[in-house]
């Protein structure tokens, strides 16, 4: 009975995803890649939107990893003025709903000359990742025995080379989790790019594909839209299936104590 319930529910949960893939390759009653051909030429060309998204993802993931690694190392291994205050401020980012600070961020990025810019957007995405990422990396560094970096320093390392040569390999699982969550956030986010990016040729994939629904003149091209959905969902699904372990690690440590 329990098995049957689970099976029925599993079908309900998985069916929409399978349907999306199926409907994106159908034209009437026949198999067709027509919708993907239309997607390739949609707007500025899907290549432009993909490039923008990849630029945003690379900047966000790299930036989050660098900033969170240094900050996690600082919090786990050093005492410095303002240490407690900074940690509380980083966690406070979680308390503030991010749609409400996007409007001042829009003005602020304009002042900094980063209006309508993927770099500005990436900086905002990095800020949003910091609470989870710094918390994760601090715990990762704390779980490495101090004797490891002390031994490295006796062997002639300074604090920086001890970090890069000895500690980084030890915190690799934490880095993968942080990178994974930064990837998912920047690949998928819709609201921040919607507000902070205004030129069509700088749109990311979610904004561009959602525009098929919002800015259609009369009729929505449903199959092409589903091709866009599949195009955005597929990398996430593949990564989920490949890196489940790191997903769960993120939930266990990041979410529960936050």
């Amino acid at each position, binding site marked *: 009975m329990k098995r049957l319930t689970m099976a029925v529910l599993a079908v309900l949960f998985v069916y929409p995803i399978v349907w999306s893939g199926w409907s994106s390759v159908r034209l009437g009653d026949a198999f067709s890649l027509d919708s993907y051909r239309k997607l390739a030429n949609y707007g500025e060309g899907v290549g432009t939107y993909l490039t923008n998204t990849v630029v945003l993802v690379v900047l966000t993931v790299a930036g989050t990893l660098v*900033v969170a690694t240094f900050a996690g190392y600082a919090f786990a291994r050093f005492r410095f003025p*303002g240490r407690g205050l900074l940690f509380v*401020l980083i966690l406070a980012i979680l308390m503030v709903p991010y749609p409400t*600070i996007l409007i001042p961020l829009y003005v602020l990025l304009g002042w900094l000359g980063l209006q309508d810019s993927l770099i500005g957007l990436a900086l905002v995405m990095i*800020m949003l990742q910091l609470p989870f990422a710094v918390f994760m990396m601090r715990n990762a560094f704390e779980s490495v025995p101090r004797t490891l970096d002390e031994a490295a*320093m006796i062997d002639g390392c300074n604090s920086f080379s001890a970090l890069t040569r000895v500690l980084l390999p030890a915190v690799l699982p934490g880095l993968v989790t942080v990178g994974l969550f930064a990837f998912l956030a920047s690949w*998928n986010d819709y609201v921040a790019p919607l507000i902070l990016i205004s030129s069509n040729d700088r749109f990311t994939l979610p904004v561009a594909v959602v525009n098929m629904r919002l800015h259609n003149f009369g009729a929505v091209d*449903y199959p092409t839209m589903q091709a866009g959905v599949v195009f955005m969902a597929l990398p996430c699904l593949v990564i989920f299936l490949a890196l489940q372990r790191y997903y769960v690690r993120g939930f266990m440590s990041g979410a529960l104590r936050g």
Partner: protein
Amino acid sequence: MSNTLGVRPAPARTLIRPRPRRRLPGLVGFAYAAPAAVIVGLFFLLPLGLVVWMSLNKWPLLAPPTFNAPDNYLQIAENELVLDAVVFTLKYTAVVTVLLFAVSFGLALLVQDRRRGVGFFRGAFFLPAAVGWATATLLFFGLLSDQIGPLNGILEWLGLIDAPVSWTAGDPDVAFGSTVVLVIWRWAGFNMLILLTGLQSIPTEIYEAARADGASRTYIFRRITLPLMRPTIALVLCLMVTGSMLGFEQFYILTRGGPGSSTTSVVMVIVREAFVRFNLGSAAAMSVLVLLALVALNALQLAFIRRRS
């Protein structure tokens, strides 16, 4: 310092070297934390101050701002769209929190034991949560459409409806229901996973002892599982309430706030005020109020958890 001798130390393989960490521990730690401090200061604290300042000014998108406090706040009370959106968002939050929690907890209980094949079902329930939120919303828009969506066909074949139903733009209650179903489909697995980690942190010895004492399954659930799950349940409810109060994509993309403005949420009104009506000051005032409300709500919930545990 070795430089006082005028000789630089050999770059590597020197056994005894001065350790900068010992000399300036404060500065070294601060240097490593500096990039995070700059990001937090520039992109978090500064905007927080700026949103308050903006809310005290008439701030058009393209012209210089002028101080007009407290007009932006007074105008909110007169704006019927805002009041309707607040009522709608609260109603939506109540419905979603109850239903989503029931489904998520049910799923977590279904997949909590480690029997063969349970891992597969966990993965299946979580699968929608692996897809981005805007992507999932767009997927649902196609699924519910009359053009390519299968739903009307299936329901007609089952004899449940006579004519195709417009799931996102016909009846306001139907459109509302569609957003609720979408949210449950996309977020149940996510919340299930958090609840599951809570369930699994309860030591099995406690269950075994209770069973040995002859406790019934309902008794065990009410007297052991629920009390020990309290912190996890509080966290999940906190996430659900915050997420629903800030709901945007499910309305902006799936129903476009309609039919009429029946599914227009608070965040949608803020975005429209800023980027359709170009009133950044008034949008900032609404943001400040939402921010205060949610921070107060979160603080209240945190205090509640602390007191109980």
